[in-house]
């Protein structure tokens, strides 16, 4: 049936609890039969032989003992299956987050966060029913009816044959109906995960919707999405329930046939009352595990559907982190030039190369500025240096070692990065800054705050440094967020500095004030900076001009200004518009 091979593979990793669960379940099934036997004896003695209560006490005692034991073993069986399931879920969860972690920002940016978190948090949870209920039930649906039928045969062979004949109908219908339900469940899972992404988007964009006076009409979209979801689910359920209807009918009609049949055979004197009652008591329990398989199959299929998204993430190849140690002996990237040779990168699905075979050297301890119009490949270049992207062709080497062969954490340890849109975590401002160096002393922290002009801002906050800054730093302006990133860079004190528009949201007054500290930060470090405002890069030791993924010019301010071209044009443009 629908045992996805890979899900089953995971089961093998946690074999023991499941085996215990099955053994306990088998014992419980045996006890169930014993119970039915004693109960039929008690009623038979009281009814047919008119035995008094005193003589029946031992029989009732056995019945009580077996029912107690059965409950204990049932509980143990559930508990063990759950233990194994929890272990598997934890494993998958760890694998998932580690995979997402190594896939990096370029991947997470390309998918909706809402969808990812649905897969991560709900998808893994959906596997619970698959392992804790569906898998054990497959076994019990086979074993328990078989055991029951074996004990019924000596009592009443005819009933045994009826049960044996009707039992296969259940899995048959299940497979027939289950197949189409499976495809539908999958579709429904997708709808759900899309819907969750859609809601986050609508919520985050609510101010925008309001600006265009569209927030109220968005209501209709939500209603429509909800209705789509309802229709999709109801379609699945109509079929899923149809399967349970069939299973239920096989069960109840089976009971009816057996009851009438044994009644007839008793009239003919072929069957004693005790045997007949024993058979009747066990008949519902014969069908029960098969019927339960139906419902659990449905719950399990949800897990199978969810697992497709999980495996889709797990199957994404991650850049293989190398373990070259040659470079690490020096443990400082600041003393070697970084060489880009024939470097190319094309985004998946794009036809044009974002970086097209460029070769240049980033000199050590000096500042290299990258400029160019938007879409020229500046950000791609930064992403390659940060190793968020793997070069399509060519290489970036330091000390003759391709940076993509260095273990990722070791490479990142060499880098301070100030992105254009720094992410602020849902934590206090202090934690957000200390991210760069958790053990920084108070003086270092204060120095970083002063240098980035955050000191006075901090005092204006209600809880100072301990103020929580919300999602995407909603309480901080873009400029403030960038200064937090700068403060991080100060604290990290790494030999390589990558500045991606570090002051694009800062006003000129503050920028002027920050310039000294930025120069201090860049001093003696290999710095790569992207800046639109050319003031920031005038003093760069090398200015690289990119256009359509290629280097069109490279030189110092004076050289480029004399030579003319994009740099000079941009500079003049800036002059002209400000004068």
């Amino acid at each position, binding site marked *: 049936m629908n045992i996805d091979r890979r899900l089953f593979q995971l089961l093998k990793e946690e074999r023991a609890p499941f085996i215990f669960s099955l053994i306990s379940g088998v014992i419980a099934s045996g006890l169930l039969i014993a119970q039915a036997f004693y109960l039929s004896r008690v009623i038979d003695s009281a009814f047919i032989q008119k035995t008094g209560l005193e003589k029946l006490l031992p029989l009732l005692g056995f019945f*009580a003992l077996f029912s107690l034991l059965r409950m204990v073993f049932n509980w143990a069986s559930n508990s063990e299956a759950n233990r194994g399931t929890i272990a598997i879920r934890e494993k998958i969860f760890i694998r998932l987050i580690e995979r*997402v972690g190594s896939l990096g920002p370029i991947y997470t940016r390309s998918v909706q966060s809402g969808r990812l978190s649905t897969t991560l948090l709900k998808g893994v949870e959906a596997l619970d029913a698959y392992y804790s209920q569906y898998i054990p039930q497959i076994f019990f649906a086979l074993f328990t009816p078989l055991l029951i039928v074996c004990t019924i045969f000596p009592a009443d062979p005819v009933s045994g044959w009826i049960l044996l004949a009707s039992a296969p109908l259940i899995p048959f219908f299940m497979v027939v109906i289950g197949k189409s339900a499976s495809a539908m469940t999958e579709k429904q899972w997708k709808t759900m995960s899309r819907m969750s*992404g859609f809601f986050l988007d609508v919520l985050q964009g609510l101010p925008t919707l309001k600006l265009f006076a569209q927030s109220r009409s968005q209501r209709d979209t939500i209603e429509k999405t909800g209705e789509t979801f309802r229709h999709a689910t109801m379609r699945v359920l109509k079929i899923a329930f149809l399967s349970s209807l069939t299973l239920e009918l096989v069960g109840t009609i089976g009971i009816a046939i057996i009851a009438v049949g044994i009644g007839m055979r008793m009239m003919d004197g072929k069957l004693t009352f005790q045997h007949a009652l024993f058979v009747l008591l066990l008949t519902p329990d014969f069908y029960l595990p098969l019927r339960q398989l139906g419902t659990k199959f449905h719950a399990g299929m949800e897990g199978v559907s969810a697992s497709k998204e999980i495996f889709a993430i797990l199957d994404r190849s991650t850049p293989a982190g190398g373990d070259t140690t040659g470079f690490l002996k020096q443990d400082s990237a600041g003393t070697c030039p970084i060489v880009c040779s024939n470097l190319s990168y094309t985004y998946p699905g794009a036809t044009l190369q974002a970086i097209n075979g460029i070769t240049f050297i980033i000199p050590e301890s000096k500042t290299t500025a990258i400029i160019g119009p938007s879409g020229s490949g500046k950000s791609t270049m930064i992403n390659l240096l940060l190793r968020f992207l793997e070069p399509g062709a060519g290489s970036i080497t330091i000390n003759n070692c391709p940076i993509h062969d260095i273990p990722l954490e070791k490479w990142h340890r060499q880098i301070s990065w100030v992105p254009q849109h720094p992410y602020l975590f849902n934590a206090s401002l202090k934690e957000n800054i200390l991210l760069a160096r958790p053990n920084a002393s108070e003086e270092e922290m204060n120095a970083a705050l002063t240098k980035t002009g955050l000191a006075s801002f901090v005092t204006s906050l209600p809880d100072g440094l301990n103020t929580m800054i919300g999602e995407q730093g909603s309480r901080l302006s873009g400029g403030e967020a960038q200064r937090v990133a700068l403060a991080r860079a100060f604290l990290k004190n790494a030999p390589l500095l990558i500045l991606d528009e570090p002051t694009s949201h800062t006003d000129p007054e503050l920028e002027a004030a920050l310039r000294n500290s930025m120069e201090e930060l860049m001093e003696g470090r290999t710095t790569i900076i992207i800046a639109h405002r050319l003031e920031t890069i005038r003093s760069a030791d090398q200015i690289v001009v990119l256009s359509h993924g290629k280097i069109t010019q490279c030189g110092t301010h004076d050289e480029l200004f004399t030579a003319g071209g994009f740099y000079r044009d941009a500079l003049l443009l800036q002059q002209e518009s400000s004068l």
Partner: protein
Amino acid sequence: MKIFFRLTALVKPYFWWMALAALIGFATTGSGIGLLMTSAYILAKAASQPTMAALELSIAGVRLFGLARGVLRYAERLISHNITFKILTKLRLWFYDAIEPLAPARLMHFKSGDLLQRIVDDIQSLENIYTRVLAPPLTAILVAALMWFLLGVYSIQAALLILLFHLLAGIGVPLFSAWLSRGVQIGIMKHKTVQQVLALDLFQGIGELQVYGKLPEHLEQLHSAEKSKLELQRKNALIEGMHDSLTGLLMNAAVISILWALIPAVSTGGISGISLAVITLAVIASFEPFLPLPATVKHLEADKHAGERLFEILDAKPETEAPATPLPFPSNHDISVDRLSFSYPESMTKTLDSISFSIHTGQHIAIVGPSGAGKSTLTALFMRFWNCSEGEISVGGYNISLLDPEVLRRNMSLVSQRTYLFAETIRENLILAKPGASDDELKTALSAAGLPHFTSKLDEWTGQHGMKLSGGERQRIAIARILLQNAPIIILDEATANLDGLTEKEVTETLKAITSGKTLITITHRLKAMEQYDKILVLDKGAITEEGKHHELMEKDGLYKRMWSLQHEVSATLI
């Protein structure tokens, strides 16, 4: 309890559907009991070798009950699930209706990851309020009543005994298991919320986490939240397993007690042996509806918690409300700001302190000043995201609080520093500004906004928060939006601050072309081409310190001149 009543009030429209589903649910269990009772009757009767005719009725009964049970269950499940999804949609709309007026002022302190969790999870858990909370006790009560009646016919003693065990299974076990699992559901929900926030931090801040070497630590945090959640879920599963076992045990205990009570009567002939067999099987069947009851208590706890959290958000009073009878938008667009003051809640300082100015229709003005001067707050007040604490803003002589905020916003376009793009197609992102716009209109707007190459990409997805687009492209989408919106008043709030020099110039030129003849408010800290403005307001620490045309301000020795000199000195030294 109040929360529970508020929640049930929400599902009230479906009362009759729910009543029907509950009745069918009861009939389903009733058929199950009937099936076993008549079967037992056939056996017991057959033991005395009666005529075939004596059994005919019960044989028909067995078949009927057998069929009915299956069909009724199918109907009950379909109806109750349909109710569930109707409730779900209703809850979502109800939530959205309530949250929409609160945005953005009242939602500032909610993290949207948490909000997503609230919406999807809390609402998803509330959707089951009928199937999990309301229906099971109802069915159990009806079945208990039926059994009481059936057994009462044979023996009052047996009826009292079954009542006792039904009470234990229906109230005792659920309360016991609720006591054991107290706090577990809430704990699980809390861990889930923590995880959601951590997951969002992971997805959106992964670059920072990698570069600062914090990824392993962050993953460990996520893992430990998962671990705590799993521990609680395990505890939950153990308790659930236990209450299933307990209910089963009570069923067996009921069988033993009733046999104990009735057997002496059978031997004395007070009760027929047939009845003994029938009653025993009925007792066994009657415990089925009690199995889901402990879960009901747990769901009740979870729903109460979910309801609390939802109401906590929704009970906030909206910052701005549409007036009952809004005035029509005036044809005269003169704007006047009169002694306007504003402070954010829980803030001691005034972000804007008694500022006054006026703008005539068609005038272009600039509001400049260092960051933190209150410039963007002014935008939020114009857009009526907040209400003025004191003073007023009026358009065409009408206080804007007397206008319908939607109409006001439709007549004022805003381009801000960061343009929010929905994870939809370019078309969806544009059409927002003019619902029903034709493709040609969209294409014209795109071309005019400087994105002619996007005209063939209307159906392309923009990616998470429009991440597939560059900063310049995003701002141009915003421009295309205001072109489509075609409002008489335009506010540019640092609209070009994120763009590189060349793009900035191009975008600025596009903006210049489309704003001519309209009333324009430019908010900026970058003093470029300031001569074009009819009036410049200098905002510093919430107050207007200078006002006038560029050359007038340059003659004063104030903040404006200092800012201008600083920005232009820097540029001048470049050459």
